[in-house]
């Protein structure tokens, strides 16, 4: 067993040890309902709001004034989310918390000179995600099979095994890549932890923020259906946006023109961009309308060719793309041949 410090719990509040810690300190839900604790409920609510905008909550670990309140805000956020019971919010929260933990994991991995610091992130990987990570000089190494099981989920060519240094059954990675590899699992883990929590009743002081969450969720109720028939370049762009990562302008242009060509309207497409770090509703609408040709000069833009997308690194060709010259042809050709 490694001894977890309170700083570790601030960084990784989803660990089982958090519960123990709070119990030892004598915290319980009833007591947290006292008006004195209202600031922490506000902090928890803020933590959720930040998550829903696709941002990552928190600042440098050294700046934490009150570590207990950091840990408690995570726990209370879960209480609020569970009481509201809105899957979209839970999904966004766990994703954002996963990204937050990812930052700390990466930082902890980088400080490996100090072996006691390396122990915790490696243990988290091993215990939570059954990935045995070891070090080799400046690199981190994991077994080829552990690597493949995770990396095949990524479409980017640099994750293909052939584009990795592979020796003696191991794949060599940087700290960033190591953590990136388990992002999905980290998200899934936090999500499942939240699902498993059982809350019988909540203090009166929490109620107001619970109903605020329902209002907050309304913003995200428009759902865009992601079809499995989309070509990989389009799927990839949607995934990037979904993760709240930045998609270059050329990628947004491709996505918008593609979906418009498939008969979707600007209204249906706009919500896709909500997670983008620089999202601005008015600008997005303006751009979409412009691309769709329903404002301004009225020129309708069409989806760029595969060649163009390849040169912009937006192409993630798979065998099914065979021979097409524009993503809009994806899936059509094969049926035409039969």
């Amino acid at each position, binding site marked *: 067993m490694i001894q977890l410090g309170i700083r570790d719990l601030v960084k990784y509040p989803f660990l089982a040890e958090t519960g123990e810690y709070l119990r030892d300190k004598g915290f319980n839900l009833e007591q947290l309902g006292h008006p004195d604790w209202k600031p922490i409920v506000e902090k928890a609510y803020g933590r959720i709001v930040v998550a829903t905008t696709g941002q990552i909550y928190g600042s440098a670990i050294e700046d934490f004034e009150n570590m207990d309140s950091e840990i408690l805000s995570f726990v209370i956020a879960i209480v609020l989310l569970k009481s509201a019971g809105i899957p979209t919010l839970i999904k966004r929260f766990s994703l954002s918390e996963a990204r937050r933990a990812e930052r700390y994991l990466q930082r902890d991995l980088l400080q490996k000179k100090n072996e006691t610091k390396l122990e915790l992130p490696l243990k988290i990987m091993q215990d939570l995600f059954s990935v045995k990570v070891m070090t080799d000089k400046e690199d981190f190494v994991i*077994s*080829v*099979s552990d690597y*493949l*099981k995770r*990396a*095949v989920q990524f479409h980017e*060519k*640099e994750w*293909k*095994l*052939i*584009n*990795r*240094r*592979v*020796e*003696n*059954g*191991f794949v060599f990675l940087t700290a960033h890549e190591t953590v990136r590899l388990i992002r999905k699992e980290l998200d899934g883990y936090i999500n499942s932890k939240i699902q498993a929590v059982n809350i019988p009743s909540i203090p009166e002081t929490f109620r107001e923020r619970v109903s605020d969450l329902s209002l907050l969720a309304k913003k995200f109720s428009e759902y865009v259906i992601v079809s499995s028939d989309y070509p990989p370049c389009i799927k990839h762009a949607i995934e990037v946006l979904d993760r709240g990562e930045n998609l270059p302008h050329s990628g947004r242009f491709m996505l918008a023109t593609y979906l418009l060509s498939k008969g979707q309207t600007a209204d249906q497409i706009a919500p896709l961009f909500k997670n983008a770090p620089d999202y601005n509703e008015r600008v997005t609408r303006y751009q979409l309308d412009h691309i769709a040709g329903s404002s301004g000069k009225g020129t309708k833009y069409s989806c760029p060719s595969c060649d163009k997308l390849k040169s912009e690194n937006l192409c993630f060709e798979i065998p099914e793309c065979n021979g097409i010259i524009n993503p809009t042809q994806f899936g059509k050709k094969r049926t035409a041949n039969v």
Partner: protein
Amino acid sequence: MFEKNVKLVNDVFKEYYFKHFELIHVPTRTSEREFGYQKFNEGMTRHLSIKDDKELHLLLMTQVPSDVYCSNAYYSFPNLPMSEKDWKGADLIFDIDAKDLKLDCRTSHICCKCNSCQNIVKQGINCSVCGSTKLETISVTCKNCMSESKKEVVRLLEILTKDFGIQKEEIKVCFSGNEGFHVYVVNSDYQTLDSRERADLADYIMFNGIIPETLGMNKQNNSKSTLPDVNERGWRGRVAKEIFGSKSKRAKIVQEVISGGYSVFQAKLEDWRQEIGVKIDPKVTMDIHRIFRLEGSLNSKSGLSKILCKDLENFDPFSDACLLGDENVEIIANCPISFKLKNKKYGPYEKEKITVPKYAAVYMICKGFADIN
């Protein structure tokens, strides 16, 4: 296959199975494997489970299969339909076939058989007798095909051991019984990989999907220092050795490669794949539900045995895997290509009545070059 041919081949196969029980065993973890077999002119029977050698030998004697198969996968319930089998894992398998190597020698030992009138033509797209376009390619295998296939096996083994860290003892190489080799890896670390993961593993082995950046070529600055060095391991080391070559030529080749810039480099990767990528059949490696020819059984495409190669370098399939009886039989052969079995040359024959040992007769009948008289 014609009924009269089936009778002879059946008898010869049965005799082989009866005499060679020592070569045919159920694989390890028997109860978790799916077995299957085929008889001449009949469909496939699969989803069988077999308890032990005795039960397997009994099946061989009673059914006299033309081909026998066993899964590389492990299941909880191997004899249930696929969706209920409960897949637990599968050995890694690789298929290297001379057909896929694009060898120059191939044209000298393939020909076509007309599906309508059985006429055999050396090449062409039409039957010279009836004009039909339904031609089937048949081939015999030559020494060169085998030595080139062996080279691919050796390259594969290098990657498996050096890159993937698989122990030599965990690898088994078999002659396929026709034109290539089957390689098995029994290593628990790789057994649970699914089809998609195996596809990426296969791409690695085939040098497929490599990007210039991996070899140190970037869109912006190209400095020689990041190009691979001969002392590196994995594909970078192999590229350095096999593409950039020895010390004396290296500087010139490297200069050439860099001067073309990123896109020329990218185009070169395709040539290099042909040159140094291992030519495995990715479909076989990706398939985690396949039933694969059983070691020790006969291959009905040739009458040769699928057999373990203990010493790959000196393995001679035309002798070592040719294990049928040698009593003489009379056949009518129409075989425009000559071939060698047990160090004796046969053919070419032009619709001739000949008397040859059983193994040669069966070889020609299985290939479609002869009929029983």
